[in-house]
């Protein structure tokens, strides 16, 4: 009888103990990112506040510069030191690359993703980018969708020269020639490798077509990379070079946007974060400036910013990862964050009425492109290829754009560069 009471009370205590534990654990997250000033910082703060509201402790680890260049160095140092941050701003195939190195398993956030049914909240392409282990388990959470292939133009300049936004590359070339004769810089460009690559992929999408882009850039088909279509694309790049001004090399992207804003230049090709420059100066879309996709057949080059969650030890950290993942996919967060950042939500069911004209257009274009096969990952922003191939291609593009290399030679070098990295 005594023994029975003992067993019962022991069982009681055990059960009580088990049920009492998890709720007390405060999640903590050390987050590596490079969104450190202006609109980016403001947007990130929304996430920080959200996380804090849920009871989590956010440890900020910012390393700015070059679209994550410096942060990547830091990140690798920490991984090699055996102490990866809880979450890092990593996107595209790099996520799977880290998984290959074995530092992402065992995918703690997949639990949250399944519970919140992320598969139904994200488009299949975006969802796939977020998955590891052969695209079966979620290991990253998407924050937004940036569109890359935008034309930004100064409306007043176009009106003054009797021009409309071009709907084909030939139309653009004609308009640019006219503007050049009138003493206006047709094409404002910042000559940095990533910007050269951004322009290139917009041109490739437009002149080569959606299927070509997929074959050449995403699948690295050698015939496509070295063929006559590629030569035509480099030809257009050469024409664009002729429409830029002397100060192009090394120029920062926002200085180029400034040239469009002031009317010194007419067009710029840049992702949707350029919108922030216009808004900050009080300019309005449709009234002061145009935002229109670069000519293509309903193609859409996307860039999804996301946070990867590395394999961790420690209950608080794992808890932090889950909480953070859930915060990132929160409906309200997705809305506010993207309004600040200039992009559109990754989550499909966020109401778009508070977004501006360009964003709304982007969202509807996205849906159409997804249906017709024109939704393609941006290679210039790390969504289509692994770093080695992306870098090799970028080298050829920037060399071609900054010299008088022939298009045929460029295509040849492209093939050789990619082959070397495979």
């Amino acid at each position, binding site marked *: 009888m005594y023994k029975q009471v003992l067993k019962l009370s022991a069982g009681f205590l055990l059960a009580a103990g088990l049920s009492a534990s998890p709720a007390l654990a405060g999640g903590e997250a050390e987050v590596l990112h490079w969104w450190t000033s202006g609109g980016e910082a403001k947007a990130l703060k929304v996430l920080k506040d959200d996380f804090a509201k849920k009871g989590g402790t956010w440890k900020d680890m910012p390393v700015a510069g070059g679209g994550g260049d410096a942060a*990547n160095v830091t990140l690798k140092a920490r991984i*090699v030191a055996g102490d990866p941050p809880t979450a890092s701003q990593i996107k595209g195939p790099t996520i799977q*690359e880290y998984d290959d190195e074995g530092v992402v398993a065992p995918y703690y956030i997949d639990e949250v993703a399944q519970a919140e049914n992320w598969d139904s909240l994200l488009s299949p392409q975006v969802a796939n980018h977020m998955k590891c282990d052969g695209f079966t388990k979620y290991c990253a959470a998407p924050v937004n969708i940036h569109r890359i292939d935008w034309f930004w133009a100064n409306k007043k300049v176009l009106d003054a020269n009797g021009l409309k936004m071009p709907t084909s590359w030939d139309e653009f070339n004609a308009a640019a020639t006219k503007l050049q004769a009138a003493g206006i810089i047709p094409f404002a460009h910042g*000559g940095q490798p990533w910007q050269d690559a951004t322009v290139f992929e917009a041109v490739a999408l437009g002149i080569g077509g959606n299927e070509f882009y997929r074959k050449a850039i995403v699948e690295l088909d050698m015939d496509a990379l070295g063929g006559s279509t590629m030569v035509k694309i480099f030809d257009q790049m050469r024409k664009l070079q002729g429409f830029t001004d*002397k100060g192009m090399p*090394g*120029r920062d992207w926002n200085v180029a946007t400034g040239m469009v804003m002031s009317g010194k230049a007419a067009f710029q090709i840049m992702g949707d974060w350029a919108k922030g420059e216009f808004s900050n100066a009080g300019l309005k879309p449709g009234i002061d400036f145009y935002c229109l996709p670069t000519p293509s057949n309903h193609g859409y080059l996307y860039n999804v910013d996301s946070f990867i969650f590395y394999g961790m030890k420690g209950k608080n950290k794992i808890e932090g990862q889950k909480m953070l993942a859930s915060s990132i996919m929160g409906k309200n967060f997705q809305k506010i964050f993207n309004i600040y950042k200039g992009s559109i939500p990754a989550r499909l069911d966020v109401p778009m009425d508070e977004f501006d004209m360009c964003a709304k257009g982007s969202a509807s274009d996205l849906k159409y492109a997804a249906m017709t096969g024109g939704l393609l990952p941006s290679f210039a922003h790390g969504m289509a290829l692994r770093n080695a191939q992306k870098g*090799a291609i970028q*080298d050829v593009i920037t060399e071609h*754009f900054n010299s008088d290399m022939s298009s045929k030679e460029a295509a040849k070098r492209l093939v050789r560069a990619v082959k070397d990295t495979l």
Partner: protein
Amino acid sequence: MFYWLQKNLPKLVIAPSFAVILWFVYGFILWTVYISMTNSKMLPRYDFVGFKQHIRLWSQMRWYTAVENLLIFTILFIVICILIGIILSIFLDQKIRAEGFLRTIYLYPMALSFIVTGTAWKWILNPTMGIEKLFIDWGFTNFTFDWLVNRDMSIYTIVIAAVWQSSGFVMALFLAGLRSIDDEIIKAAKIDGAGLYSIYITIILPMMRPVFMSSIVILLHISIKSYDLVIALTAGGPGTSSDMPAVYMTQMAFHRSEIGLASASAVMMFLTVLAIVVPYLYSELRRQDAGR
């Protein structure tokens, strides 16, 4: 026992530093050499593949550009810095009232970090924002100074900025050297009828040999390590025309997930230092020993 301790104390004192150097310098170099013979991509892997990465390295156009640039840059950088250093130090040595003030102006650039140096010079050398625009605004409408955006000349802009940052230090070294020369020697030469110019060339400069050595060591190490300045000023551009080995290595290792290739380039850099610096230093040290 005590005698042994006393006798070997110097070596014991150096031992901790040496052990540290052994691990953190030579150990790491060995690690790099090993990795340069593996297939490491994004993170280090330890599979041995022989000289594959080294062969790959010497088929990369960017690497050739980088090596060529390093040669051009190093020679120009060292020669110009030393020239300026000597000229400025001789001038400053002429008992000018504003010496302290001028000396500070020439020396301060070394105190600044690359963000300042790179950004400021990037603007100054930019044709649409800096010197060229300034002269055009002043009326010289045909003035051009577009080296920064010219792929053949971009490496020289890096020389301009680097010389700016380091020549003051060389000047300080030479000034100190000049000041430590006995006035008697100069007086004697003057009495013998030697002109100021020949005094400098035949007597003073040869006595500055050790200063030359220190300057060259310091300038060479800055040259080989050039990364921050290149990134801030040209980012290796236009295109990849102002690439340098340290930039190439960093990009390959951390942004191209090609750690094996990057290590091969690092090994090349070590070998270069070995081949040039070691014989030079060794001969200087032997000379100093002989002179004692």
